[in-house]
């Protein structure tokens, strides 16, 4: 489908979508719940007072486009960050702004969620609908993957609880007790919605942050976990989310064709929503034409650090078709956490281990620390790449795929 045709379809579908809004009952609509926030922006401005340890965020769930590293445009479902948009009073004006911002505003991966231990996190999800697929009335959810001691009402599994319909909002509440590397995704028709792009990074910084600990002769104030001894101290941290797309599935979705979930085979391996070499572009990728100027790929995977620094990699995997092994070339990794838990036994035995690769299936996470050598000169490069070497391509385009670089400043 050429982009002009896409545009015309989009125009029609947006129009029909907006007209459809009127079928919702009057009490339905965009509704952001955030303590201390009165204008529904999920932020605190002017006279609004942020309660202690409170964080808010407003996500939109809808669709959009991204550009693969070989230039292919891909239709996606995804989340957009609507935080900061005034939503109150409700209809007509501000909520319409939210819907317009969210429509075709999906990012891939989803906007990162960064939390601190002790936070009370109010996450509002507004279903802005699928502009390109007005035939779909899919509800959406947020599944905070790995959240310990979860209750179904906020777990985002539609079968176990509730999911939000188009044009309305659902606010999730999480008391953040446990640091570590998690992830989040929509759990509605998860094989489809996740393949289509509704996945993102989520991690929680520990209460130990801000304290000072000396480890290996260096002083750290930021840590992966409450380690007690500074052994997870780091200078810079990077979330790295493994993912991959089946372009035939995305094309079928855009063209309203049947979607045989069981037949998925991914041909675009990615890190943080991009194939190499776009992974090492530190900036956002240009907005796809089909998105009407909305930037959809904001997350770089380029890792940069000074010599002698410790780099924390928060690695997660949210592809839906296979396992991937992520290797480091030229430098080893020290695995200090898995699945949002410090790698220590119940009586404190230290189970950290060094390696040159980690193998993750969907829904697994690994925290690994890389020590940049103290004598590394500026410009030196190391690599993070999949050792499943046939995934070092963007579909058939070589020198691409699941790879990024670690560059010494």
């Amino acid at each position: 489908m050429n982009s002009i045709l896409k545009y015309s379809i989009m125009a029609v579908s947006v129009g029909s979508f907006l007209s459809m809004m009127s079928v919702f009952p009057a009490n339905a609509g965009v509704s952001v719940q955030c303590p201390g926030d009165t204008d529904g922006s999920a932020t605190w401005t002017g006279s609004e007072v942020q309660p202690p340890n409170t964080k808010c965020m407003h996500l939109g769930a809808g669709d959009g486009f991204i550009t693969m590293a070989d230039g292919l445009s891909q239709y996606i479902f995804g989340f957009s960050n609507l935080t900061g948009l005034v939503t109150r009073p409700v209809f007509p004006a501000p909520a319409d702004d939210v819907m317009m911002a969210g429509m075709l505003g999906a990012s891939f991966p989803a906007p990162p969620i960064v939390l601190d231990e002790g936070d009370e996190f109010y996450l509002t999800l507004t279903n802005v609908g699928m502009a390109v697929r007005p035939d779909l009335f899919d509800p959406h959810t947020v599944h905070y993957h790995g959240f310990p001691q979860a209750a179904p009402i906020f777990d985002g599994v539609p079968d176990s609880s509730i999911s939000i319909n188009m044009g309305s909002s659902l606010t999730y509440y999480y008391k953040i007790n446990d640091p570590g590397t998690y992830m989040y995704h929509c759990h509605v028709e998860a094989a489809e919605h996740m393949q289509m792009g509704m996945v993102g990074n989520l991690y929680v910084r520990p209460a130990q942050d801000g304290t000072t600990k000396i480890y290996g002769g260096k002083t750290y104030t930021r840590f992966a976990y409450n380690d007690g001894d500074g052994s997870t101290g780091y200078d810079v941290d990077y979330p790295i989310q493994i993912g991959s797309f089946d372009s035939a599935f995305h094309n079928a979705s855009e063209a309203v064709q049947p979607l045989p979930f069981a037949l998925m085979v991914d041909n675009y391996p990615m890190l943080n929503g991009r194939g190499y070499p776009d992974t090492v572009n530190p900036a956002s990728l240009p907005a796809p034409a089909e998105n009407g100027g909305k930037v959809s790929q904001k997350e770089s995977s380029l890792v940069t650090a000074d010599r002698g620094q410790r780099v924390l990699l928060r690695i997660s995997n949210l592809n839906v078709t296979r396992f991937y092994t992520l290797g480091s070339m030229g430098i080893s990794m020290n695995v200090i956490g898995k699945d949002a838990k410090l790698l220590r036994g119940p009586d404190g035995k230290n189970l950290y281990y060094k390696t040159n690769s980690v193998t993750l299936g969907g829904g697994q996470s690994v925290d690994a620390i890389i020590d940049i050598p103290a004598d590394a000169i500026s410009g030196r490069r190391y690599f993070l790449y999949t050792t499943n070497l046939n995934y070092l391509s963007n579909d058939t385009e070589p020198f691409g795929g699941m790879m990024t670089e670690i560059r010494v400043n």
Partner: protein
Amino acid sequence: MHMRVIKTAFQVTVLFAAFLLLLTVNAGAMINGITGTTFNLTAKTGHISTPDGGSYLIWGYANGTGLAQYPGPTLIVNQGALVRVKLTNNLTVAGGGTPPNVSIVFPGQQVTIASADPGVPGILTKEAASGKTVTYQFTATNPGTYTYYSGTDSALQIEMGFMGTIIVRPTKGANFAYNHQDAKFDRETLFLLTEMDPRIHQAVENFGPAGVVGTDYLANYFPVLWFINGRAAPDTMAEPMAPWLPYQPYNCMPMMHPGEKLLMRVVGGGRDLHPFHHHGSHARVIARDGQLLASAPNTGPDLSTEVFTIQSQPGSTIDAIFEWTGKGLGWDIYGTAADGPEFIHTCNDTIVVDGFDDATHEYCADHDKPFPVTLPTNQELAFGGFYSGSPFLGSLNSLPPGQGGLNPNGGYTYMWHSHTEKEMVNYDIFPGGMMTMLLIEAPGVPIN
């Protein structure tokens, strides 16, 4: 406003009809299997069913004169027992050709062959030729979770269904996974994970094992069906021994109360890796391949760690202990007086002072904390079949007609599934495949 409304009528979706059946029948919180020291297994053909109406030829181990099973019978033995497994080859193949030899290997066990039934030499072990018997014997020296599977033409025969689980109960007792206090559990569930490439089964059904020769099915393997304990969801949640699943006797329906310990025995029965994601909370992995994760004898699982996704590897076993209390949610999972007088309750942490109610395991620090947000109106929501209508444990609330209904006691339900999400489908229907639900019932709601 939340009200304890027991719905008198609800529409049951076809998809999850099986679940209700389960609730009316013995749920079976212990693992189904056969016990003893001598097991007579028979290699036979059978046909399994999938929820989308599919039927597939399998080769399975039958218990004696019973039907072939997918997976084979779960053999439950006591530590120290001398175990004898007599395998008789009653396999038949299409086209009237000679049925292949069959065999069993027992990873992690020191197997000898009984002189009475010596079998014939094979690549990995002694085999039973067509119509013949071979007897394997081993002493179940170590407790734990093990697997058994075909040692003959394994790429084909394991795929066809020759695999199963062995549970060795420790001398310390049946509610221990291993001989250590930290391996104690209240309930246990088996999760034997397999996948299937129907091309292979159809080729064997039509042409016998020769049907796969010359294809690339075994090398370029492409499964499109996924199972837990031999069933694809929602059949995983149906009753065990369901008459309409004669070749798939085992279900997978974990149930528990808050504060209980659920032992997950996870077996990689097929050939693929599976990331088994258990919603609700972390689980502590205490053993692999029948070996407690211990730094030395008698230390207990001091090398165990907690995960939110169990990485199941082919042929290997994982034992993990799952607990759930709702600790630290920041709101009272049983509701507060503000939700209605029927929600008034106490939290008594006096007998065993551990932060939890002595009877209900409610986390007392969150007691009486209000539900933190306002939920959207019903018109704005889609409801799951397992949604009780209420965010509170053990509570029901009215839902629009036709919604919910699969959770009559207002339990908390969690999806447990392969996080390779394409594996939790029945072709193009989601959810299905390698999926089940954990049901946490409110304290006082009987399980079993």
